[in-house]
């Protein structure tokens, strides 16, 4: 598999929620490309549409949500022989959410790990039963073989005594162990893409570090792509190769992880980076109190449609008459670095020249 092989592509995705109070444009024109074997980090505040983008990819958007527009394409690799393989193009958005074809992808080609390990498993069925279920569903194996595989996968997520853990109930495991079991469940059918929706947010930092290490090791072992969703830029720095920054249902900046931290271009990304507490800053100004920088204002009401750029009410570089008038287009400022901001469009250059 070449490093740049595209595994999944999201084009112009719009996922809306139709509520009594109005329409929430949770995902409002997102384009993303996930490459085989690589990690794409998605970062943004709560409610920016990260999770709904991920759920759209699996056609699991809960009602009253609906994929309104856009295309999601999944490139399934079919190994015919050792050397030769062909690609099978699947248009996910054309499949019915509960169709056999869609269910054959879920848990098998694409699987997902959720934020809350305590709630991800049913308390009254054993860990093993819940893992074996996915194995028996997607692979033609009998119960004994499925159990063998479940024990094997539990061992690979570094759970001690996997042959005992397989018969335990989720409530008998600690949070960290449970998240390992949930990851094992997601990996049980060797997926090509793992969507991780804030998998470490509910865990303490030590456990978080262990889970992140584990996921990286498993990624290399299984050669799978990861779509890593988080609000934590530190985790992004550690996990991702590519990063997409989301704000109000749109990707506002997308680049490789090094450029994002070295040369953030969107004012929102810059503000996010400034609001990370820095240890050396704290040391330098020991004794002197200084507040951590925050992004001023709040995320606007989700029912509203703002004219222009959705970040303009909070933007420190807001340009009157431009940002609040016209929605910015995506601009490629450097090769592979795109940003959705008027500071980089020709229009703003004119404004500044005046």
């Amino acid at each position: 598999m070449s490093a740049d092989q595209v595994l999944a592509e999201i084009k112009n995705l719009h996922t809306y929620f139709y509520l009594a109070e109005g329409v929430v444009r949770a995902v409002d024109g997102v384009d993303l490309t996930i490459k085989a074997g690589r990690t794409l980090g998605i970062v943004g505040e709560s409610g920016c549409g990260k999770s709904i983008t991920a759920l759209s990819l699996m056609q699991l958007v809960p009602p009253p949500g609906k994929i309104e527009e856009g295309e999601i394409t999944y490139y399934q690799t079919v190994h015919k022989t050792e050397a030769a393989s062909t690609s099978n193009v699947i248009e996910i958005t054309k499949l019915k959410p509960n169709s056999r074809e869609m269910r054959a992808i879920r848990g098998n080609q694409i699987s997902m790990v959720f934020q809350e390990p305590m709630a991800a498993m049913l308390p009254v069925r054993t860990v093993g039963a819940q893992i074996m279920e996915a194995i028996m569903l997607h692979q033609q194996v009998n119960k004994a073989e499925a159990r063998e595989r479940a024990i094997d996968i539990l061992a690979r997520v570094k759970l001690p005594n996997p042959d005992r853990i397989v018969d335990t109930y989720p409530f008998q495991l600690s949070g960290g162990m449970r998240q390992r079991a949930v990851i094992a469940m997601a990996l049980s059918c060797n997926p090509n893409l793992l969507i991780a929706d804030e998998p470490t947010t509910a865990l303490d930092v030590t456990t978080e570090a262990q889970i992140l290490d584990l996921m990286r090791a498993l990624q290399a072992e299984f050669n799978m792509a990861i779509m890593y969703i988080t609000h934590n830029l530190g985790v992004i720095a550690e996990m991702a190769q590519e990063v997409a920054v989301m704000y109000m249902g749109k990707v506002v900046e997308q680049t490789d992880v090094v450029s994002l931290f070295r040369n953030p271009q969107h004012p929102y990304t810059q503000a996010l980076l400034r609001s990370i507490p820095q240890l050396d800053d704290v040391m330098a100004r020991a004794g002197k109190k200084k507040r951590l920088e925050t992004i001023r204002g709040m995320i606007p009401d989700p029912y509203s449609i703002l004219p222009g750029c959705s970040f303009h009410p909070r933007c420190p570089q807001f340009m009157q008459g431009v940002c609040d008038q016209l929605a910015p287009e995506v601009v490629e400022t450097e090769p592979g670095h795109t940003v959705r901001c008027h500071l980089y469009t020709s229009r703003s250059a004119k404004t500044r020249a005046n």
Partner: protein
Amino acid sequence: MLSYIIQRIIRAIPQLLLISILAFIIIQLPPGDIVTRQIERLQASGVTVSEAQAQALIRQYGMDRPMYQRYLLWISNIITKFDFGYSYTFEKPVAQVILERMGYTFAIALFAHIFTWTVAIPIGIYVAVKQYSLADYIVTLITFIGLAVPAFFLAMIIMYVALTKFGIRTGGLFSQEYMVQPWSWGKFVDLLKHMWLPIILLGTGGVAGTIRTMRAMMLDELRKQYVTVARAKGLSEFKVIVRYPARLAINPILSGVMWLLPWLFSGGIILEIVLNLQTAGPALYAALRNQDMYMAGAYILITGALTAISAILSDVLLAVSDPRIRFGGVEGA
């Protein structure tokens, strides 16, 4: 698991003891006692009862002894000889009256509950999955009517319609010709012909409540993350619902089993009287009306004991269904 059951049974023993004492006190409460009643009966049938005969009767029934001794006599007869005393209403030993009726009572109540569950559980799950759909609104409306209309009233309407429009007699458990005959295939078929109505009517009473419980529980569970996780595995929607939220939502129904056995005895009395069934409920009613103390005491005791046994049964069922109870585990860490 076995130790859990044993532990549960041991805990029930003091409960049963307390129930028996209460039952005994209750049957002593009404004014007049068994001896005066017996004397009245003899006098009514033209026999003159002398003072000496009355004293003999008092001694015979132990009425001259203190209450605790009478209690001990009563309870030891029950435990050692299964002797609940004599029923004047039915002019048979109490144990015999109860045993005769026990079979029908048990069969009708069990089938009624099975009817309730098979109808209510799938409907409850369905309307929760399709919340706010037309089907949900219709079922909600019907269940509210079902909760409001008493079963005996429904029984009268059905009996009236069956008799006047279709000429079918629906009361009782047997047709006239089979009433006193020994058991035969014909009598069994006749029994089945008469049983469906009480089963459906008694069962219907529970349907509405069970649908409401199931729907509420399912709505809670459907929002849990494990449902999305199960969907993300690629399971079909039916398997997701049945194996995950429904698996947990069933628990309150299992704890409802606690009311099954006592309900057998006294749950459907009015309906049973209306339908003229030879079950336990109407016998209790007759006993209470006639101050038939041993009969009434036996009923109170048996109903209490059945409640205790059902509580054990439902706890065991819950423990089988939910390992958190089995392991005494606490959710979360």
